[in-house]
């Protein structure tokens, strides 16, 4: 993965025509990996951690989060639009799907699920001090986040944990950029007081 350009094709391959096309594209791209598999695999490596963290902030239930994170990619696979995208768009789609799954999750749950912070799974390579500190931070943030409106929580998680721009966040939420900036500002002011 060190040098330069990665080249992928996402087209379907159901016949000799597709095979010819792939050969053609292979000739045009000199790097070695060009299949749908590798594109998705790279998206997975690139964003899986971010997706987990994004969903975690919204759901706070690690096993469920990991199931959903996996599902994001599986959903991405069957979405036609997904394959038309450039890398920026693909990232956008990944989080759009993640966001829908989070909404889906809440609807299924019927209500917000809270998690007992003592039960949060702890990775075994952290020191006790780190654990104490991290637990505190997650605790604070997640408690504080619950004081925000649903939309504000979404803005914060998309902006800070999915790493989307405010205009991308606006697009995903179906709001104007101005509205997103306003919610973001209000949310931060609120969080500042709560933290």
């Amino acid at each position, binding site marked *: 993965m060190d040098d*330069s350009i*990665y080249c992928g*094709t*996402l087209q*379907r*391959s159901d016949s*000799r*025509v597709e095979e*010819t*096309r792939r*050969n053609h594209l292979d*000739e045009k791209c000199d790097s070695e990996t*060009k299949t*749908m598999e590798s594109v998705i*695999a790279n998206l*997975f490596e690139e964003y*899986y951690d971010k997706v987990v*963290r994004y969903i*975690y902030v919204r759901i706070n239930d*690690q096993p469920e989060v*990991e199931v959903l*994170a*996996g599902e994001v*990619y*599986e959903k991405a*696979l*069957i*979405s036609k*639009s997904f394959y038309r*995208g*450039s*890398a*920026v768009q693909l990232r956008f789609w990944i989080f*759009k799907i993640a966001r829908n*799954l989070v*909404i889906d*999750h809440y609807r*299924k749950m019927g209500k917000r699920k809270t998690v007992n912070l003592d039960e*949060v*799974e702890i990775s075994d*390579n952290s020191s006790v001090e780190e654990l104490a*500190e*991290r637990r505190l*931070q*997650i605790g604070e*943030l997640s408690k504080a986040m619950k004081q925000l409106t649903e939309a504000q929580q979404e803005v*914060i998680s998309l902006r*800070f944990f999915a790493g989307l*721009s*405010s205009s991308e966040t606006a697009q*995903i939420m*179906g709001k*104007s950029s*101005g509205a997103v*900036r*306003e919610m*973001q*500002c209000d949310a*931060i002011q609120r969080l*500042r007081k709560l933290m």
Partner: protein
Amino acid sequence: MKDNIEKILDECIDRISNGESLESCLASYPEHAEELRPLLLAVRGIKDAELPAIDHKAKSAAKIRLNAALVEKRKEEGAMKQLLEMFTIQRSKVYATVSVLLIAVVVGVSIYAVTGEGGTSNPIHNVAGTAGVSNFMSQQQFEDYLASNSQQTGGNYIDRWGVFASASEDVDMGGALPMPTQAPKEGSYTSDTSGRVSETNVQVIGIDEPDIVKTDGMNIYFSREDYYYYYYDYTSSSDVMPSQMDNGVKIINANPPVNMSVLSKIDRNGNLLLNGSTLAVFTWDGIYGYDVSDPQNPVSKWEITFDSSTSLVAARMYQGKIYLVTQTYIYSGEPMPAQLKVNSESVPLNYYDVYYPILPSYTDSTLNADVFDMQSGQLEDTVSFVGSSWSSVVYMSGDAIYIGYSYSEDTTPYILAFCENNLNGVVPDSVVAKINKLAEYDISNAAKMTEIGVIFDNYLGSLGSDEMMQVEARINDALQSYYNEHMREIDRTRIVKIGLDGLDVTATGSVPGSLLNQFSMDEYNGYLRLATTMGSGFGFSWFWVSNSNANDIYVLDGNLSIVGSIQGLGLTEQIYSARFVGDEGYLVTYRQTDPFYIIDLSNPQNPQLKGELKIPGYSSYLHPMSGDRMLGIGEENWSVKISLFNVADPANPAELDHYILDDSWSDILNTHHAFLLDEAHEIFFLPGSSSGYIFSYTGNKLELITTVSDIQARRAIYIDDSLYVIGDNKIVVLNELDWQVVNELDF
């Protein structure tokens, strides 16, 4: 003021995210520093909040599931060999111990489990002809329908395998031709500022299709295509990719060619439609309308955007209206038909406009048709129906939009029938008896499939390995002959007809097999003619058979009931191209050679195979030409091949000439839009993998007249007697009278 702070804060968040320090942000806005500092401290606090470490076991499991899903996807896309290989791997796993990998495979696949057809006690039923539709009264009813329709679904991944098919429509796939069906032409969208102007090569004359190039005879509108691959630069943290640097629609002053220049650029990318002075750009997330009456200053006019689960299936332009077909993936928690936004306003939903088949069927999305006014972007009418996202193919005539999509009958009743009737002597009676008993239980079909799997696993697991292999081979043989007999019941395409007048579902029907692309459908004198391929495969537990392709022609009446058919053309071969022209149908199937069939459709009740020609290679695009000729563009031995057929005598089609190009690719294999015919000069254009080729067919001889190199050729157009070869970064204009270069424009 408040607005200002919000903007500054937003900018600072981005800067801090990109590694800048809090202080340097504050330094940029000294007048706001006091107000900003506490907010930015909070931002840093939020960003630094340490989230849980990623559980690597969960991550690997997700990766395995994803890989399994990828394999599944490949399989659905018709890569038969790969399917069989994967199958073998799965089998060896199950007879070993139940490994983590296997569980992952099953789980991964079951996510896609299909909503089976209902009716547990229902024997095999063959929904031929018209199936009724009804419409919803409310959101509640819509949700209830989806819920009850999915009751049969369990973790039954086998069901999924019944659904894949070998055809799909891309927006940029399709095709068309001058002579065949012609829609009545009223609204003219070609300006008459010059004498002769080419139009995009479409299926039905007068019904335009979006493409990367449009012209009005004065200007060329060109959007560079970069769908096929994208670059990700691992060396830079930036998300800006090389291929995106120079995106956008270029508006080029093209007439007269000596004054060619880029007038302006629209900062969006995608296929285009042009109507008068309105240009529509089809991007990945919506359609954007521009007023281009001043080509130097295109002005944004309207926008139609899709919600996150909606994507474009196809679009057409007819008489100043855009007809849009989209599909909306149904998320279980939030079932909704398409939510379009026009100029950022959500279009209100009316469930009366959402139809569903009365017979329950595989459902994972709604398919939606909308009509918009091209000038204003206003939504004029909309209709949706519950369907499947697999393999949607869209064809539009002057009267109706036809949407065909593959679905599979629930395979459970077939498998039960197979076990009951076809396994006598192959497996012990006790196994058959167990399955027959299972058939009577009042449990879901999905559960029955799981149980059948267990019965076979137990039985086969009890055998020695030699005997097991023999039994497996016998079961496979029996399954193969059963499938050959029943594949027309199992592989199905549902056709939904949406009348343009009132935009309503006016009929639905169903035919065996799946459609290749839009050219597989054609309406003529009130009849819809279809060419389908079946044989995508069938199986249960660890048994799978496929590869017994057959191709059929069906003629349907206005109610989409089958009135005539020819079955079993090109056995073991697949359709590579189809074209219907008036009373004739032309079909190319392929495996090793290219049988080119001519079908007489003059009597819709009794279509007849008239003639057949076998030549090497295949044609994946057929273009009817004057003088009873047909041009085929395809491939032979990995080189682009062009064939010119004489079809004057349907009983004796003949190849007049062929040409094998020293090039391995032409975009015509991908989209008919890349083809240009200029009958006045008896020439046609095709793009190669980089050059553009111009052929003459004068005197039925295919002759390469000239090659335009170093251009990354995409399309060509003509205005008067000038041929414009349009490449990614360049336009070269040739004089069609002497083929000299008149002008070039780099951009």
